[in-house]
């Protein structure tokens, strides 16, 4: 499936961002790359979706941002999960698993 044709649901994007930050803090570019990596290249998050989501999630208290230096020594804004972000990641993952199981089950039934 070409990545550009994949439309991300808002909840899915939030969950992917939370997941991408679970192991380490990343800048916006890093988050986009990480999401592409963990979804096997299915999701290519564009800046127009990524930054509004980051802003919204930071405002919701799931992320905090800080200025740091990227691996190429460039000044970049990094994001880190908060306690409430981790909690959110856990509940959203569980919810998503339930839904995907139910959907897979429903689609397989005859």
């Amino acid at each position: 499936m070409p990545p550009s044709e994949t439309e991300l649901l808002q909840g899915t994007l939030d969950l992917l961002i939370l997941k991408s930050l679970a192991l380490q803090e990343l800048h916006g570019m890093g988050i986009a790359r990480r999401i592409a990596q963990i979804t096997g290249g299915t999701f290519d998050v564009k800046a127009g979706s990524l930054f509004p989501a980051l802003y919204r999630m930071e405002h919701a208290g799931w992320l905090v941002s800080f200025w740091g230096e990227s691996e190429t020594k460039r000044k970049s804004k990094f994001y880190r999960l908060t306690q409430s972000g981790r909690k959110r990641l856990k509940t959203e993952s569980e919810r998503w698993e339930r839904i995907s199981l139910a959907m897979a089950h429903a689609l397989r039934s005859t």
Partner: protein
Amino acid sequence: MGADFFSDGSRIALDVRRSCVLLEAKVREDLDDELRSYVELMAAEKVQRGMSHEDAFRQAWSELGGIEQVKESVRDVRPWVLIDTLLQDIRYAVRTLRRNRAFAFIALLTLALGIGANTTIFTVVDAVLLKPLPYPEPNRLLTLWERSRSDGEQSTVAPANFYDWHEQSPSFSRMAAIDPYPDFILGGSTNHAAARRLSGADVSADFFSLLGTRMELGRDFLAEEDRPGHNQGPPWPQAISKQWAYPCTTDAALSSRITKTVRW
């Protein structure tokens, strides 16, 4: 009409807006830096893959999809965008009202009448239904009437019946009689400004103490003064309670003239 109100509203709107703009500028600058670094990182990746510096940047910028569009989409999720929209709505409303004075006047009049009517109705409901009577234990106060057997109409209690109820009824701890009479004018034979319209009533001896009303002046009836045939002697200065008195009755000279005799 309301020109001051309008400009006041605009000024408040302007103040809120100004603080929003300052905050907005800070975030905008931050976002600008963030997006630039995003593009640089993306370009660096491309350079690493062997692209020329120039091409890498050109492609990175085009992949970003327009820095202004991205900034706009971030702007849309910010909480004060709501305030901004609200202020725009308020400004629009003020402009519209200013242009159409007749409509504004009718709208204000409708609001004023509506609020006024509601306040009046509530005041009455509050006084009649919600507020307790200004007496101790108002829930234990009852009004007793006689009812005619032939037509079921309420009628005045005969004094003799009142005495019988008073002596014999076990249902009430105390009982008093009141016989209101039409408003009357008090004083003013020499000084017309002192004339007052008063409401009066004949009451039995228990009346004021039953209601728990304190006397402002004079004294209450005595039980022995409340007997048929007792009105032979000279009239005595009568008691005045707050609920029944007009401001003029605090004047001692006037109150000494308020006299009353028992009719029964």
